[in-house]
Every structure is written in structure tokens, then in C-alpha cells.
């Protein structure tokens, strides 16, 4: 499997910096963004991002709104919510809006890696299925 391509979105620059180094060391391709809008812009540039690791509480556009927009524009991209303040309500809301899972800061790297790989697999499976369906559609059209 190709290494997952993730985007880390958090307004805490030192956190983003260190996390990026750690994820990169684990062979992940990492893009970063320090806010919701920046994350959407980055996604526009890198549409092949598999997983977005998204902080919930951010100034300006918060995590929930960013999640909504991502899911609207890129429904196949999986989002793992990351929060310093995990309330049941916000987690449930996130899950309802289509987040893959949620994690609490500071998170365990192995746990995060596990979830990232799971989410990537899910996304790619989904893409494969769509692709297969498209191929079948084309084939069926040709067959017809």
C-alpha cells in the first residue's frame, strides 16, 4: 500500500511542526494547515490527501465547520477529529457529520497511526469500488 497522505490541521504551530516530523518519520506524506480555510485551500491543491487530522477548536473556522466543508467538497476524504477538549456532544456531532473517528490530545502515536491506516484503507477501498463501478459501467457501455 502506498503510504497514507495526511493533512494535519491545528492552530498550534509547534504541535503541527513536531507531529509532522513524527508522522514523516513513519513514512507518511504530510501536509499541514494552521486553520480551517488554509486546510480547504491545501485540499484544493492536493486532492489526493487520504486523511485529514483536524483539530476541533480553532480560531476562525472551527473544526466542525471545516469538517462539514471537507465532506461536502471531498466526500471520500476521511477526517479524524483531534481535540484537546473532548465532549461527548462534539464527538457525536463530528461522527454524525461523517468523521472517521475522534482522538483526544495528547494522543498516543501508535493509536493515531492505527486510525490513520484504517481511515486510509477505508478511503482507498471506497475509491477502488467507485473505480471498479466506473470500469464496469464503461465496460457495460462498450459491451452494449
Amino acid at each position, binding site marked *: 500500500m502506498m503510504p497514507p497522505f495526511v493533512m494535519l490541521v491545528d492552530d*498550534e504551530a*509547534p504541535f503541527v511542526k*513536531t507531529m509532522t516530523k*513524527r508522522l514523516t518519520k513513519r513514512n507518511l506524506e504530510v501536509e499541514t494547515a494552521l486553520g480551517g480555510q488554509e486546510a480547504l485551500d491545501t485540499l484544493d491543491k492536493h486532492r489526493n490527501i487520504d486523511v485529514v487530522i483536524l483539530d476541533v477548536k480553532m480560531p476562525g473556522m472551527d473544526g466542525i465547520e471545516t469538517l462539514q466543508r471537507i465532506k461536502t467538497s471531498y466526500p471520500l476524504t476521511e477526517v479524524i477529529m483531534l481535540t484537546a*477538549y473532548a*465532549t461527548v*456532544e462534539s464527538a*457525536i456531532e463530528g461522527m454524525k457529520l461523517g468523521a472517521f473517528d475522534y482522538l483526544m*490530545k*495528547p494522543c498516543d502515536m501508535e493509536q493515531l497511526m492505527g486510525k490513520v491506516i484504517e481511515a486510509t484503507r477505508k478511503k482507498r477501498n471506497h475509491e477502488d469500488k467507485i473505480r471498479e463501478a466506473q470500469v464496469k459501467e464503461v465496460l457495460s457501455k462498450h459491451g452494449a
Partner: protein
Amino acid sequence: MANLEQLSNSYYRLLTRNIILTIISVSIIPLILVSITIYYQFRTSYHEKVYAHLCELVHKHKQNIDGFLSEKLGDIRFLANSFGLDKLSDESFLQDRLAALQKNYGPVFVDLGIINNEGEQIAYAGPFKLAKANYSDAEWYLQAVRNQYFISDVFLGLRGLPHFIVTVRDTRKGQNWILRATIDFVAFNTLVENIHIGQTGFAFIVNKEGKLQTTPITKPFLDILPGKIIYKDFLNDQTSDPNEIRVSVKPDSKNRKNIYVASFLKNGDWLLVYQQRAADAFADLNKTFKITTILMLLGPLGVVIMAFTLSRMIVNRIARADTEKQLMNEKVVEAGKLASVGELAAGVAHEINNPVAIMVEEAGWMGDLLEEEEFQESKNLAEFKKSIGQIQTQGKRCKQITHKLLSFARRTDGSVQDVDINDMLEELVALSAQRAKYSMVEIQPDYQENLPCLKFSLSELQQVFFNIINNAIDAMEKNGGQLKISSRRKDNYIVVEISDTGTGIPEANLSRIFDPFFTTKPIGKGTGLGLSICYGIIDKMGGKIRCKSSVDVGTTFWVSIPIQAGNGP
């Protein structure tokens, strides 16, 4: 503090005194007023009744005495008119007449006599030797000559015994003659003597000069015989109706109040007086007064005792209520302080979490770097790794504490709403699905359908079940297992059963799992607040939370939540 205590003591003393005074004043004053009014009315009517009774008594005896005198006068007039001077001058005939009268009336008539114009008794029938007696100078004779009929006062006369005389004057050949009868004093006296009421009531008759005409039963009453001054008042007041009954209350020589009831007899010549000591006449009233006074004293005494007891009880209750109120206020203030501290802690915890996350990540990065070859030869590699591990462990511990603090201090949405318990459990299961998957936990839901909606705060219920589910997954983290979540209705409760096949809780710890800050999780894993929060929430809802556990077998939680009235399926 001592001042405050003194202040509150003096406040309660003042309160007690005010209550006592209020009870006494509203109870005793009306009681006294009513008693005085009733007694006054009763006394007035009793006096009137006694006076009316005495007046009636005197009136009846006046009629009796006047009737007696009229009757005797009538008999003498009959003799004089029927037989004339010639026959009556015959002493044997006169003796026969006397015998006939005595036969009819008993010894009332003592003797009979005929007196000529010169005052000489020309014929006499009777027990005394009074033939030829001369009465020309006697007071009664002078009166008898002047009046056709005459009844004398009581006097001793020639015989030396008390008596009175009834005379009828007639004229023959221009010469006056008089038929005289002597009335027995004892017989007459009996008429008055019989008037006797109570211990001190007696009657007597006086003439216009105030001389006694009867002999009262004086022996026991000698000391109370009225002075002339008393009945002179009556005698001097002859202007009004002579038949009128007069009442007077005056003190006697010993300053004791006496009642005098009087009426004129014999056309105003005599006065019948009834006398009785007021204390004797009103003995029953005085007795009633004494009883009333005793009751009047006992009643207020009871009121006073009740006022003291009641005021003490009331003040004690007020004091207790005040103490409870004060405690409540202190609790409210304390709760307010706690809330402020909680909010402050929540803010601090949130702000701290991000730096802690960075610290943990930095330590993680250091750990990652240590894996590189150049550091593998370092003799302190193990110490570095240990220190980094410690930083990460303590960082996670900080995370746990701040997260619990946040969830403990944050304002949960306490608004009551319709909660479908099955929907809520499904959401929580979905939320925990990923974690369960990594821990190799199989979630087995079993929900009873068509359960009634609960009317409680959704976020509070979520917090409770999320905590229990998380704990269950924690317990099976190492070896995996089954997590059974079921809901069913039992009477007026919805019972949610959550059972795991995890490590279980030792029996010694089972009774302490709901205590705040009790935890058996490793450092950094738990704060010991979760289940105590759950317990608090369910208890507040009026529900129950129960746990059964066996080590290495598993743990089951039963959460019973009451169904509100009117929420039936």
C-alpha cells in the same frame, strides 16, 4: 462569632417574649373582658331577681296583714251593727259573742268591751278584771272617739301585756258608745314572725313613730336590728303611693350592707319592714363569683403555661429552620464558589492541554530520534528512553486529569427533552465502535423495541453510558471480549444492562467504585471521577445504578431510569 451568637440568642429571647406576650394578650384580655361582662350582667339580673322576690314576699305579707286587720275590724263592726248597745251591754250576751268569735278564729280575740261616752267600760267579756275600767285618758280611746273605726298601735295598757285594740264607734240618743276588741299579740305577731328567709332575713312592723309593733326573732339578730334612721327614710317618704314597695340598701352599725324592703300597712299607720344582710341574700351569687374567680385564675394560668410551652416550641422550630437555612445558604455559597473554581479550572485545563500535547509530542519525537543508529551506542540510551517514557506517561496523566476536570466543570446541557434510550445507546455504540475494534471487543446490542421516551437531559444520559461503556472497553483492552448492551422495561423503569467479559473488579473494591477519586486504573489512565459523576446524575434523576462483578469473569452494570408519568408506550 461570640457576638453573633449573643445577637441570635437575644433575638430568640425577644421573639419568645413577643410570642408569649401576644398569646397572653390575645387570650387573656378577651377572656377577662368577657368574664367581667358576663359576671356583671349575671350580677345585675340576679340582684333584680332577688329584689323582685323580696318585693313579692313583702307585698304578699302586706296583703295578709291588711286582710287580717280588715277581717277583725269587720267582725267587730258586724257585732256593733247587728246587736246594738242594749244587747251588747248584757255581759252574758257579750261573753257568748266572744266565745263564738274564739270558736271561729281561735284565741285571736282576747276580750270584748263596751265603753260609754265618758270612757267607762260598761260591759266586759274576757279573762281580765277590767269591768268598770276607765279609758277616758287612754290614747287609743281618744282616737276611737274621733274615728268611726280604729285600730290602735301595740301597747301594754292596764293588763301589762302587748296587745292592740280594734274599735267601732256608734251613737245612741246623741251619746257615743264604743265596741272594743282586744287582738292577741301572739297571733298577730306570728303573721310577721313567719317571714324568714336565709340566715339573716326577718320582718317587723313599726308605727309612725318608729316603735316596734311586732317582736322580731331578735335573739340571733339583735346586733343587726336597724336603727330608726333606716326606716325613718321610708316613713318620711309618704308622698308616693302607700301601696308601693320600697327597697333600700344601707350599711348597718357594723358597716355591713343590708337590704331593706318596706311597705305601709293600715293605711300608712304602720310600716312592714323586711331586712336581710346583702351577703346572705346574695350568697349564691357570691358562691358563683368565687367559682368564676377560681376559673378566671385557672384559665389564664393555663394560657400562661401554654404560652410559655408553645412559644418555646415555635422558637425552637424557627431556630432549627434558621440553622437549616443558614446551612443551605452556606452550601449555596460553597456551590457558587465551587462552580467558579470549576469554570476557572476548566479554562486553565483547556489552556494547559495544548502545551501538554506539544510536550508529549516533543518527547515522542525525541523517542523517535533515539531509535536512530547514532544514538543506539549511547551508554545513557536506556535512561533517555525511561525519561521520555516518563514524560509521556505524566503527559497522559495530565490529559486524563484535565479531561475529567473539563467534563466535571463544564456546563452540561441540563435541559429536559424526550430521549429515546435505544437511539442514544446506538449512537454511543457507533462512537465506541472504532475503539472496540482495536481492543478486539465485540459489541452485542439487544434493545427492547417500543420503549417509552424518557424525559431527562440527553447530554447527562450520554455522559453516564459513555463512561460505563468506556470503562468496559478499558477492562477488555488486553484480551478483548464481549460487550453486551441491552435495554428493557421493568415496571416504571427502563433498565439498561451493560456487561463485559473483562478483568472484573475485586470484591474489596466493589463497594467503593462510586466514591469520588477511587480508581484502580494505572497512573495516567483514570482519575476516579467517572463513576461518581454517573452515580450523581442517576441519583438526581431518581434512578438507581447497581454493579456486580467477578474477577476474570466480567462486570455488569444495571442502570434503572424512572419513566415519567404519562410516558407509556
